[in-house]
């Protein structure tokens, strides 16, 4: 059962990832990414990470993707006629990284070594959300506070960058 679900999720994820890169219209790319996020969330449920799955849907599909779609529709973009001139270089680089990763995986030998896939120990993972909360507020308290600072800086930066007339008229001229 798990294997069937995994193959379904993995197949859709790879297909949608290819569609994100390949489709000509930016709206289609964003919607393919939306479908991919939902299937990644399914994969997380399969891995007993319910909290992360919910966050994936709420934050990624609910907030980030909506922001993307908003900007795509705001800018009123045309479909792309062709890929970048350097698409051959891109394909070669991608192939090289893929071969490297496969080599590393096959040399490391952890693929053969079956890791214990037992049911979660009750004291370690008693309630996924509870475990994450405990780790977040004890071991990772400082990074958690830094993350909130990052969000604040991003918020201020976005407002300042997107504000109209932030850069003077002369500067706007010189951009053209």
């Amino acid at each position: 059962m798990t294997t069937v679900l995994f193959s379904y999720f993995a197949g859709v994820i790879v297909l949608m990832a290819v569609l994100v890169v390949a489709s000509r219209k930016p709206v289609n790319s964003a919607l393919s990414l939306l479908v991919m996020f939902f299937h990644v969330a399914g994969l997380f449920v399969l891995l007993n990470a319910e909290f992360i799955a919910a966050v994936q849907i709420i934050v990624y599909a609910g907030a980030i993707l909506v922001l993307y779609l908003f900007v795509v529709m705001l800018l009123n973009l045309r479909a792309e006629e062709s890929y970048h001139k350097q698409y051959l270089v891109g394909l070669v680089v991608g192939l090289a990284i893929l071969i490297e990763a496969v080599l590393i995986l096959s040399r490391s030998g952890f693929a053969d070594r079956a890791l214990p896939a037992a049911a979660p120990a009750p004291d370690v993972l008693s309630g996924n959300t509870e475990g994450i909360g405990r780790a977040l507020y004890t071991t990772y308290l400082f990074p958690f506070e830094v993350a909130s600072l990052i969000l604040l800086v991003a918020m201020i930066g976005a407002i300042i960058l997107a504000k109209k007339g932030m850069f003077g008229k002369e500067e706007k001229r010189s951009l053209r």
Partner: protein
Amino acid sequence: MVPLSYYVILSTMVFVIGVIGVLIRRNIIVILLSIELMLNAANINFVAFSHYLQNINGQVFVFFVLTVAAAEVVVGLAIIIALYRGKATVHIENINLMKG
């Protein structure tokens, strides 16, 4: 039970597709979407290892990746909007101010 290596292979494939997307697309918004693909590949790896090693810390890191991704998207899209106001294009071939 699905072996861990399947998850690693899946995330490698998604990551490579993201790299190719960054390199071959001309629309800067789609390039940002490809970066999201790569971040998601990393997240799949984190959660898979967290499950197989029975260690919750991997999922905490996914949380931080999400935070950074959200910040990156917000700033990136704001830059794109500012750029579009100035040059009325999002194609990276037309954005060559620094080439001189």
